[in-house]
């Protein structure tokens, strides 16, 4: 039912050379290896260190899959600059390692951005009830670390709870001189209207709470992302369909992107993520929810493993009130396009010229 709601428009002309050939989920033992080898031979003289190491690791098929693949991973290049063969190889390598690690068949998808698609997101701030189902669905879908120590618990979505303040009539005359005798009204320092100081640590008995509104935030997938600009190794970049992604294998953990992000969307894996085997989501994307490693930065990627297959992000799917909308901004008939055209829409921190593709609206 959800699949029908978000049809990705595929213009017939110029199919991307790489995208159609990619299997949605390569089987580590069969398809991935075969593709890798065939593409490798096809690629001829291109003998980068990574392909040599990777192919060696795949061909030996040693029992110690983890050690062999991890060794090869150390020498692989930046994902964006890899050839199709190298990409397939890198993914097959990860599939082998993760399958062994988590004791189930893990797939690492590599579906590329499709032409004619620019992903966009719209959130109805009036509808949100602050239940945080999106936060938890996101953690489960995207294999975030869920330990108990402070650095081990990672959530990509924060639902900010904002109080409604009031301007009371009784206080009007209760003025007092402040500082150098400047007269201040009784309502001067009282919160009024919607207080834009959010708090995401809240434990309500029931939602929605009286006197509170909610403002969920996550990565805004900026069109002019400050994080991409500051990255010294270009490990984080904007994909052609608008999503800002991270090649976790290329990240050096310098955290410049975290300093540069005005939305506090990025998280650091301070230690090896705590991801129980039984809770691990085996359907992954290379630039998306595949398990991360120690010392790298991660963030929301609009569930690339789902959205590139024409599905909704987990947060959109789980939202009980339909506050979250997702679609193709280049398709005038898509839900987000209609919202942008007809509703009252705003972007967060628009003054910083980051041009988010995450929009807020109200009816």
């Amino acid at each position, binding site marked *: 039912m959800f699949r029908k709601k978000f049809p990705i428009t595929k213009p017939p002309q110029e199919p991307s050379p790489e995208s159609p050939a990619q299997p949605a989920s390569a089987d580590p033992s069969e398809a991935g290896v075969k593709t890798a080898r065939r593409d490798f031979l096809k690629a001829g003289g291109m003998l980068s260190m990574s392909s040599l190491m990777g192919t060696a690791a795949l061909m030996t098929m040693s029992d110690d899959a983890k050690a062999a693949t991890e060794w090869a991973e150390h020498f692989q290049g930046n994902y964006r600059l890899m050839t199709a063969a190298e990409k397939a190889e890198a993914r097959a390598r990860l599939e082998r390692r993760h399958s062994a690690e988590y004791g189930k068949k893990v797939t690492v998808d590599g579906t590329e951005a499709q032409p004619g698609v620019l992903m966009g997101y719209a959130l109805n701030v009036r509808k949100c009830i602050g239940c945080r189902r999106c936060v938890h669905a996101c953690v489960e879908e995207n294999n975030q670390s869920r330990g108990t120590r402070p650095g081990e618990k990672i959530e990509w979505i924060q639902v900010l709870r904002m109080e409604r303040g009031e301007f009371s009539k009784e206080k009007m005359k209760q003025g007092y001189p402040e500082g150098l005798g400047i007269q201040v009204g009784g309502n001067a320092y009282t919160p009024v209207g919607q207080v834009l100081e959010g708090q995401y640590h809240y434990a309500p008995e029931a939602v929605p709470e009286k006197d509170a509104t909610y403002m969920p935030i996550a990565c805004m997938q900026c069109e002019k992302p400050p994080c991409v600009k500051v990255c010294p190794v270009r490990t984080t970049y904007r994909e052609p369909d608008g999503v800002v992604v991270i090649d976790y294998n290329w990240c050096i953990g*310098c955290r410049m992107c975290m300093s540069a992000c005005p939305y506090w969307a990025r998280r*650091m894996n301070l230690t090896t993520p705590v991801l129980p085997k039984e809770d691990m989501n085996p359907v992954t994307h290379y630039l998306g929810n595949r398990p991360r490693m120690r010392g790298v930065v991660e963030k929301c990627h609009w569930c690339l493993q789902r959205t590139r297959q024409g599905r909704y992000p987990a947060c959109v799917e789980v939202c009980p009130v339909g506050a979250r909308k997702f679609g193709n901004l280049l398709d005038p008939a898509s839900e987000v396009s209609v919202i942008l055209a007809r509703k009252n829409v705003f972007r967060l921190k628009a003054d910083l010229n980051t041009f988010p593709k995450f929009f807020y609206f109200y009816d």
Partner: protein
Amino acid sequence: MHKLINFASDYMCYALKGGTKFYAWMGFLAVLIAYALYGFYLQNTEGQIVTGLTSQIHDGLYLANLVFLVGVAAGAVTIVFPAYVSHNKAMHEVTVLGEMLAISAVLMVMLFVFAHMGRPDRLWHMIPYIGIYNMPGSMLAWDVLVLNGYLLLNFTCAFYYLYAKYTGSEVNKKVFMPLVYISIVWALSIHTVTAFMIATMPARPMWFHSMMPIRFIMTAFAAGPCLIILIFLIIRKNTRMWIQDEAIQLLSTIITWCLGIALFLTMSEIVVELYARTEHANGLYYLMFGLHGLTGLVPWFWSALAFMIIAFVMFLVPAIRTHPKWLPVACVLAFAGIWIEKGMGLIVPGFIPTPIGEVTEYYPTLIEVGVTLGNWALGFFILTILLKGAIGILIGEVKYQGGATKSNDVTGSGKTVAYEAS
């Protein structure tokens, strides 16, 4: 080539021989270095969870010391500039010592880069051609470029000069002087770029102002010479090299001016930010008075300010500035004040509150403190070796003699043999 090998071996032989005091000092540093290695091992097996860093405050002691030490490195120019541009003779005699300090400071910066990275094993990703070097977009990439360039320049200038002295040949001025002038401008660039690195992020309003580069340079030209004066006084006391009073006096004059301007800039920032007291001033307000009941940095800020003001007053008074006992006290106060101001007082409150308004505090762990101390120790270890060898050559105890070199113990109580510039 034969001469070069001799130079290296004589240099090291001379630098590594010393009295009890010397070995005790080096041993003490070695212990700290060993602890830092342990901390570094933990960071790269368990991860940076062993530090006090969080996703809210993800840069702490390491970045703070990195920024400060870039300033110390740049501070060496306070010797090079008077020596070669104003032709100050007293300074000219000790230029090499300043350059050695710059080399050690840049090496310390690199150590802190290693400690700061989440994945230091992947640093090769930054090497052009093998990896990707995000130029000109990334300020961090520019910083790496200027720091490495500065290291190379100082290394070349210092060791070329010493080598010429060692072999008794003349310095080729056509090669040497352009390098010196480039290194003077380059010194300004390293601190400017480091300031740009953190000042170009509107996400962090506390850092987002154009005063940052000049403030960095002023504090650098105060903190750098403070350390240099302290080192000079130690050299005067413990080696046969005599550093002229004139050099030290010129440095303390430079400190006076730069510290004064630095204090003025601090005051300007406080007035501009707190007069309007917008949300963007929250970081500074947290630093000065605390926010939402969290006051972790308040004592740091006020002690730094007190140190700097007291030091400034002391430097202003000529009797104290030239007093052999009070001058080092003023230097230590200024150095400590600037270290706090540019370390804990600049980097940490940049993250408080976070861009979404969360106020948390930063508590460095023992491991983090240990790695920091160990990095400083390794820097001083290198600095001691570099300075000792350089002094040996400058006072003529290490000379090219076709293989055989006499080497004397210099760390004894050898008193003040006046050094005459040859």
